[in-house]
């Protein structure tokens, strides 16, 4: 992933416009979400001082950390829900060698696709529950009535979702890669693409989870809504691994995926926050 000159770095081999726009939007949105609460906070404190009410107001810190802590605790205590996507991932992937036979050539050819599709489906399987529990017991109402930016809480929930699905999937993938006779550089490439790709899957999935949270049977709808958006990630992820296996550099795909991830971090929590408000109002 090297560039000979600065101008080549800016051009990104012709993809510069998209990549830099994606990073630009992500930074702008993140910046707004950091600056806006500070401005609101100042305004609020000023207003409180004017109205001479006893301002029992501490600075907001920690809702991000507290939400991650809470969601991880919940995941840990519901071990079945935690293991479900991981077991699914391992079972689906390990059935392929049994069904196809132990041919080194075939297995190492299909490996990137199988592992990526399984990771994608495992994420899809678990994303349905992202806001469901909170919706059912009323915590979601409290989240929506929090003076904290909803963006921040959504990001915290997506991060904890990734920590209990995408991240362990990524850690498991080298073991399964070995089962498919993937060479070392292929495994390395697979891990890197999953590391960039699975957070993106969680981010995109959260939009669908937010939209369908009010529905009794949202599981199928969520797949229909989300799968088309997953396809670019899947194509980039598998082609990155295949390119490495063919002996070329996968920098192009990785840069595209990173740009998509930046775009996802910036925009998808906004979409999720909006969709949660719509779902709660329905």
């Amino acid at each position, binding site marked *: 992933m090297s560039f000979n000159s600065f101008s080549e770095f800016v051009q990104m081999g012709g993809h510069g416009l998209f990549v830099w726009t994606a990073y630009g939007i992500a930074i702008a949105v993140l910046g707004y979400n950091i600056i806006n609460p500070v401005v*609101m906070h100042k305004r*609020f404190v000023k207003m409180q001082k004017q109205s001479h009410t006893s301002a029992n107001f501490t600075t907001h*810190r920690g809702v991000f950390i*507290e939400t991650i802590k809470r969601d991880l605790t*919940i995941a840990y205590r519901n071990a079945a829900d935690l293991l479900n996507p991981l077991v699914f991932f391992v079972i689906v992937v390990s059935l392929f060698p049994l069904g196809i036979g132990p041919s080194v050539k075939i297995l190492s050819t299909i490996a990137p696709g199988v592992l990526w599709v399984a990771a994608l489906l495992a994420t899809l399987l678990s994303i349905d529950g992202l806001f469901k529990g909170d919706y059912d017991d009323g915590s979601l109402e*409290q989240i929506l009535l*929090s*003076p904290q930016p909803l963006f921040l809480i959504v990001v915290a929930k997506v991060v904890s979702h990734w920590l209990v699905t995408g991240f362990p999937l990524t850690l498991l993938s080298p073991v399964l890669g070995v089962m498919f006779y993937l060479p070392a550089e292929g495994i390395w490439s697979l891990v890197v693409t999953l590391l960039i790709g699975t957070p993106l899957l969680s981010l995109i999935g959260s939009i669908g989870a937010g939209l369908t949270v009010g529905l009794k049977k949202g599981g199928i709808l969520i797949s229909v809504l989300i799968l088309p958006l997953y396809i670019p990630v899947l194509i980039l992820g598998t082609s990155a691994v295949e390119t490495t296996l063919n002996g070329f550099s996968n920098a192009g795909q990785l840069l595209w995926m990173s740009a998509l991830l930046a775009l996802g971090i910036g925009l998808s929590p906004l979409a999720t926050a909006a969709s949660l408000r719509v779902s709660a*109002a329905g």
Partner: protein
Amino acid sequence: MELVAEQLSCERDQRLLFENLDLTVRPGEILRVEGTNGSGKTTLLRILCGLFNHYEGSLIWNQQPMHEVFEEYVAQLVYVGHASGVKSCLTAEENLQWLSALRNDPAETESIWAALSQVGLRGYEDVFCSSMSAGQHKRVNLARLYLTAGSGNLWILDEPFSSIDRGGVANLERLIESHVKADGKVILTSHQPLQVEYRVRSIDLDEKK
């Protein structure tokens, strides 16, 4: 700071719940929303919280349209709804810790324990809410009121007395009393008579059709 609703109308499933409803809640006031089952009490409270948007009319907080100052509004709002907001795989203390962190006001362990003992859950701090009864879930949720009492906040309480025993109801009534005496604001629905030594204004939704 006062909450004003002007000319509120709401229709749900092609049924008119209420029409041209005006209400004002000033510091130190209790407003009781009355009505038969299905008359739209919960819907009205959800509209006042900003959780439900399918209505006509305007909501004004502190002389400004509510949606423009929504973050300031919710910073002063405590909503106790039908759903308890309590996670059963967390302990009472963990639940309150997160709920108070959500409200910009992370509570110390001591104040959480004090609030829990005031709702009659002393000794239940480390008990998983899954092994508590419905009434105890409600009490965990109501402990949030003790954490914010006396701060002049607006409390919107939807059936706060449901599944609470007689002693708990009396305690809650004292709490509401002291909250409004300290310039707090309370809007509530309840099917039971409210026994507080304070003037309670009420609106009847059945008359607003």
